[in-house]
């Protein structure tokens, strides 16, 4: 089954249109990863109108290319400039930049690219095995199971994002509330459109994401006023890691791949969490513990592999359940819906071309990125020096076109501006926009499944936990709710005890 899958997926991907889409996506993704200020979610939202011309398979391949391309690009600036291009590469600055200052920038970049490639490929293979399996078992899921899954997503995501759990939950609720705008999914009644014809179809997903991630970011950058960045030079000769560096990287890459993949399955900003978790793990198990922070290659190899593996892992719930748990996969889902494709257990049966095309593009894209990134890394790194005064107007204009192009009305551009201003203010108060976007996408699924469950059970609320599967999932939800408080309690107990013993 899997072998057949690999072949058919590669056959779909090497069709010229798809190949081209994969290449363009990978290049845009790398650029987005390199440039601070424009994350993968915003870039994907901007490109969605463009992909509509390409058709669903090629369009989604391009979007997926941006998604994993940004994971590659993010490490480049972390290593060379000490500026992470995206949050998942923040940890890489610790040892990557230290390596660059010791003159081993090339080796760090090469290891990051190789680790990303291995982890990326590993996660696609795993995806290829697990996604159909999960999709098949998900066919047995009723609305009650879907409802619990979305609740679980909300709880876990709020545990993992941002500094404050309550604030994440607040953002999630705001997203769920916004998802209610438009036609009600069951009765067909129009809600919260305030008489605006353009709001009948709901809040434009593209307008909201470009506003929250694009416009808000430009406004934040304007407020910051950073000085010009200093770029460390890389010589082509230095690109090859020496034997010792290779040897020291092998185990961290392997560990990072597995750890990242597993974390990718969980809701939340998987790539970022995976990178931090891998760094922590490597520091704990390494023989060269004292080198960490001063340029240990393990500190680059582990996290960079982990964030790529997580990006692949996060595709599993999206493709097989239709539930996105990260902002990037939420945008990907938005793109799929605009292409008329509903991801979920039926995707593999109804649109195998799309499913295998996207999976195959992961293989091809990873290879392309490795080839692109190794020799061209210097060029990509120079892009970070493009001054914001030239870059930001382009981002703004693209945001406007993206928001306008979705439905072809100016109302959505106003929505985008509103979202941009709101996003700018939200950031000031430590409210993250990511849970809001996920809430907006999960909202309709959550509402529909809740109401269907109640209709099926004739108003009996126990219908929400009648099946054994539901019970198991509810207990995980409960555990996820209690665990953080228990951990805090235990920690305070331990601290109190150690204080006592000191006295």
């Amino acid at each position, binding site marked *: 089954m899997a072998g057949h899958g690999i072949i058919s997926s590669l056959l779909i991907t090497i069709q010229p249109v798809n190949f081209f889409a994969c290449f363009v996506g990978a290049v845009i993704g790398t650029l987005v990863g390199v440039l601070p200020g424009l994350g993968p979610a915003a870039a994907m939202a901007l490109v969605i109108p463009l992909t509509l*011309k390409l058709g669903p398979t090629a369009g989604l391949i391009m979007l997926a290319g941006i998604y994993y391309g940004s994971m590659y690009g993010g490490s480049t600036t972390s290593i060379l400039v000490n500026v992470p291009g995206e949050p998942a590469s923040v940890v890489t600055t610790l040892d990557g930049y230290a390596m660059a200052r010791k003159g081993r920038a090339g080796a760090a970049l090469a290891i990051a690219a190789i680790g990303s490639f291995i982890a990326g490929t590993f996660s696609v293979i795993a995806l290829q095995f697990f996604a159909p399996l999960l999709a098949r078992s998900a066919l047995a899921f009723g609305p009650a199971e879907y409802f619990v899954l979305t609740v679980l997503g909300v709880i876990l995501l709020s545990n993992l994002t941002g500094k404050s759990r309550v604030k994440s939950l607040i953002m999630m609720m705001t997203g769920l509330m916004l998802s209610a705008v438009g036609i009600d999914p069951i009765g067909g009644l129009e809600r919260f459109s305030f008489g605006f014809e353009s709001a009948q179809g709901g809040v434009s997903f593209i307008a909201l994401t470009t506003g929250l991630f694009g416009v808000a970011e430009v406004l934040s*950058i304007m407020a910051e006023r950073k000085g010009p960045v200093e770029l460390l030079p890389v010589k082509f000769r230095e690109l090859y890691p020496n034997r010792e560096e290779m040897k020291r990287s092998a185990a961290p890459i392997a560990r990072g791949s597995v750890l990242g993949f597993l974390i990718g399955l969980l809701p939340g900003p998987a790539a970022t969490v995976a990178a931090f978790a891998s760094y922590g793990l490597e520091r704990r198990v390494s023989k060269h513990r004292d080198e960490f922070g001063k340029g240990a290659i393990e500190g680059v190899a582990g996290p960079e592999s982990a964030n790529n593996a997580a990006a692949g892992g996060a595709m599993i719930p999206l493709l097989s359940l239709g539930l996105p748990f990260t902002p990037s996969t939420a945008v990907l889902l938005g793109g799929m819906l605009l292409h008329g494709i509903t991801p979920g257990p039926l995707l593999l049966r109804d649109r195998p071309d799309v499913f295998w095309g996207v999976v195959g593009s992961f293989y091809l894209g990873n290879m392309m990125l490795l080839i692109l990134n190794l020799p061209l890394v210097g060029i990509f790194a120079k892009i970070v020096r493009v001054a914001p005064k030239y870059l930001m107007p382009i981002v703004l204009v693209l945001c406007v076109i993206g928001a306008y192009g979705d439905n072809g009305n100016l109302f959505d*551009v106003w929505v985008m501006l509103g979202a941009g201003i709101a996003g700018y203010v939200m950031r000031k108060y430590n409210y993250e926009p990511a849970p809001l976007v996920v809430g907006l996408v999960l909202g309709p699924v959550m509402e529909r499944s809740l109401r269907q469950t109640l209709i099926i059970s004739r108003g009996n609320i126990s219908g929400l936990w009648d099946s054994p599967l539901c019970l198991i999932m509810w207990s995980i939800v409960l555990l996820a709710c209690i665990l953080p408080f228990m951990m805090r309690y235990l920690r305070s107990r331990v601290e109190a005890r150690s204080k006592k013993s000191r006295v």
Partner: protein
Amino acid sequence: MRIRGSPLSSWRGAQIYNVLSICKEFSEKNLTIRKEIASSLVLILFGVVFLLYDLKYPLDQWANPGPGVFPLMVGALLVILAAWQLTQDVRKPKPEEAKESHERTGSSIREFLQRNKGEVKPILMMGVFIVYLLMVKWVGFFISNFLFAIISSKLIGARDWGGPIALSAGVSLFCYFLFEVWLKLSFPRGVLF
């Protein structure tokens, strides 16, 4: 605290200074907390307005929940969460942040502007954006876009005019050919173009 601690000296000036500094310190400590409280209150207000508006939609019965049920649930949860956040804000003063604001706080208008210097540009940018969106209907999409890109580039920090104009012309032409000619998206036209 210092009021009680300081003896009633004959030097009133010192005492007034003391009282003033306490008031100032108190207000500074509460500056960020006050902002946090305000943000929670705004969220509660948003939730309440949303819930009031939601009452327009039927709830029906449990056996067949109406369109008002789900918004009611999430809206109520938002209000509860925001209220919880509010109690946290009120109860927990944040000493480090208060210290940080202490350094930045001043009383005169000039100092206030100095302190919020970073905010001027984003606010101007928002204004430019609004003017731009109002212009699109009259002047047309591409011309207002051209002007918008130049002005935003200047606002972000371009010193000369040549760079922004060249950039804007390039971006406008690129967008015209990519989106209008190739992708057949039609953008609003104005009096000129």
